[in-house]
């Protein structure tokens, strides 16, 4: 199982990584910590699952000059490229936002997978609200990952 984890926050990435490894012990997890890194991965490879954060820096924070402009909806940029490349990788959006903005529209997370999948012509399996004080996202992510088996 080859998984791309697009997440700039170490704490959240560790949290998500633990769930992935819980569901897929042999998962090979690649990590992208910025929009640029994610776009580069998607330009060259296919994944069994892509876990995607929405708010990302343009570049890896560790690079010369830091992260560049913060992109509040950087995840959408990643999805747009996936559409352009006719990417077959399924996406799971894991965000701390209660909604997703697209072309001036605010989409509720519950509605977003269906609308985004239709609009962008790619496979978005789920949009999960990641909350530090509520573990329900863990259950939701386990279920979605398990359906990929």
């Amino acid at each position: 199982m080859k998984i791309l984890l697009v997440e700039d926050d170490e704490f959240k990435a560790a949290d998500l990584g633990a769930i992935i490894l819980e569901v897929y012990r042999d998962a090979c997890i690649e990590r992208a910590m910025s929009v640029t890194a994610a776009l580069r991965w998607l330009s060259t490879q296919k994944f069994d699952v892509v876990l995607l954060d929405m708010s990302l820096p343009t570049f890896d924070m560790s690079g010369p000059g830091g992260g560049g402009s913060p992109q509040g909806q950087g995840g959408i940029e990643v999805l747009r490229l996936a559409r352009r490349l006719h990417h077959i990788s399924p996406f799971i959006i894991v965000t701390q936002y209660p909604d997703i903005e697209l072309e001036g529209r605010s989409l509720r997370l519950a509605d977003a997978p269906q609308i985004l999948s239709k609009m962008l012509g790619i496979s978005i399996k789920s949009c999960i609200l990641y909350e530090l004080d509520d573990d329900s996202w863990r259950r939701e992510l386990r279920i979605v990952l398990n359906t990929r088996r």
Partner: protein
Amino acid sequence: LGVYDVHKQDLEQSQFGKLAARLVSASDVKPAQLREISTWELPFFSTETRLIRHQSFSVLVVSAVLRSLTAESNISTQQILDLISRAEGVQSYLSLQTLDAISSLPATTNSLLLRFLVAELRFRRTRSGDDELERRSHFMDLFPANNRHDIVPFLDELAHDHPILAIQIARWCTRRFLERLFRIMASVRDVLEVRLGICVWLILHDKLLEEDHTEERNALERELSNLETRSDIDSTRVHVDEELFREWFNDTQQPSAVRYVQTVIAEGSVIANESLIAYFSKFQNDELLMSTASIGSDLILVQIVDQTLSAFASDENFGLDAYLSRRIRHGTLRGHLLAPVDKVLRDLAEMSGNRDMAADDDRSMRAHQILFKWRSKLLHAIDHVRKEIIQVKSPQNRNGLIQSSWRTVTNVRYLDAVVNRVRQRVIETGGSYDIFPDVYAFCWDCLEADLVQLRRYMARDFLAGALTSLKNAYGESPSDVKQILWGPVAAIGTEVKNRVYEVCGWFIRPVFRRNEYSLKTLINTYFSTVKELDENYNFAEHLIMEQDISIDRLTFELLGDILFILIGNAAQHGKANGRITIVARWVADRTDHVELTVTSEADNQASLVEAVNRINAAITGTEADRAAVREGFSGLRKIKGLFSSRQLVGNVFDFYHESIECSITFLIRIPAKFMAARLELV
């Protein structure tokens, strides 16, 4: 052709004109339509009639030509490139179907450059995110992956046959555009270097905007010079998208800006009888701002500034509020402050061997419960901050600390200064001065006081509340649990404090546009900043300098970081009620240095020895610590790192102590104009 006849003289002078005439005559566009549109447009243009008439006519002709193209048209790639390059804004006259038709022409599909140009026109027509990615993808297709160095040579080559088009493309390659070329750019440094190369190229080729390009080149050089120092702080600092902001300004304020410049020129260099502050003090409300007719240049500028400041704070695309909403209020703030707490809670849970805290270790479980209850309070306080405090003040958000208003005593002074400065520059340049940079800098000036309030709130109200309730939770816990609770409580206290200081670092102005700064202001600012962050700060401050010293931006930023660390350390470790003395002087040597000593007192001999040992250990450490803000008040290794990475003759960073006076003094000597010194070295 009637329209052609009118412009015959202009058009016949060029190949373009001949081609246009031939193709227009073959198209289904009726000359009368062109004439009608052309005439209709003219009243909107002011005095430069001949040029503008020619330009608008060119656009109309080119659009007609492009509409008439079919797969059978006998037109080459070069001819289409030539047409498009001569008609800026042609996309406004073309439907999306026409653009699609052009993109499928053999002349287009065979040319990577033309494919990019058509995608660019389409994006400029729709402004959609998809088309924006499309145009970038086509642009990236022009270059091999990771080869950013090819962009300037590409412009050079293009300029041979299509000089106007080359300049146009160079202007399109803004920093924001370059930043998103993911196959070519890998870091902020790449972006800055390429944009700098393009600016240098534009200075040679684009004489019309030479001054703007030169200013940008200088700013980029400064930014590249101190990239490492600023990088980790800037990535999380408050942010307004300057390029989108500029686009907004051009779209909405340009007519007023033109009117302003014309009025200033008409008024001449007469000095007003009174300053704007005195003038405004006569009015009790904003009524005068509602009047747009027959008003002087100052008030036109105030109108511009008023609307621009409002957009700066609240625009949903590029404004500060949009950034706060996307980057800070949603998740980031909560995650940042709660992450270390949750880590400690997890560790505590793991101590009992069970994440859900089974009853096998009753004391651990009760300790976990106490901390979890405190965490709920912290969460509540964080939610209050993000929902109520880090907000632009409005009727809906009355507690918001971001006022972003020029109607305060301090900000009216900034306004007065910007009004005078801009007026002077407009007069000096004979009306060619671009007012946007000054207005933009003014917006940040107005925000300065709000940022201070935010930092103060976080460091005092929020942090004090969180630590007090943590202390209470510990104090009220049963004595058998205290034993287990002590370690986690101490760890949480330290971590939360550090994280809050980090959050304070987010609320520091990121943009400095000027290149000359006052050292005295810098020192006083950092005394205030440290005082804001440390609620126990209780020191007598002494600043000794005979006259103010002018320093450049790089020196300003380096000294800013250094003072933050040294004053912070003095405040944290120095003698309570003691004094912190800073002596600054100019050293007139080959590169004109500025020399600072920062002296603080220790409580007694024992603490002096301890402090000296600690400083020695920090300074002789091997790893340069890059994150002063993250560390709170430490980071001597960072200073050492700053100095070792900037090896210039005459730089000094040292410390000494006086046993009798029980004092520690740091000595810093760096060039007053660091940038100039570095260039001289190169």
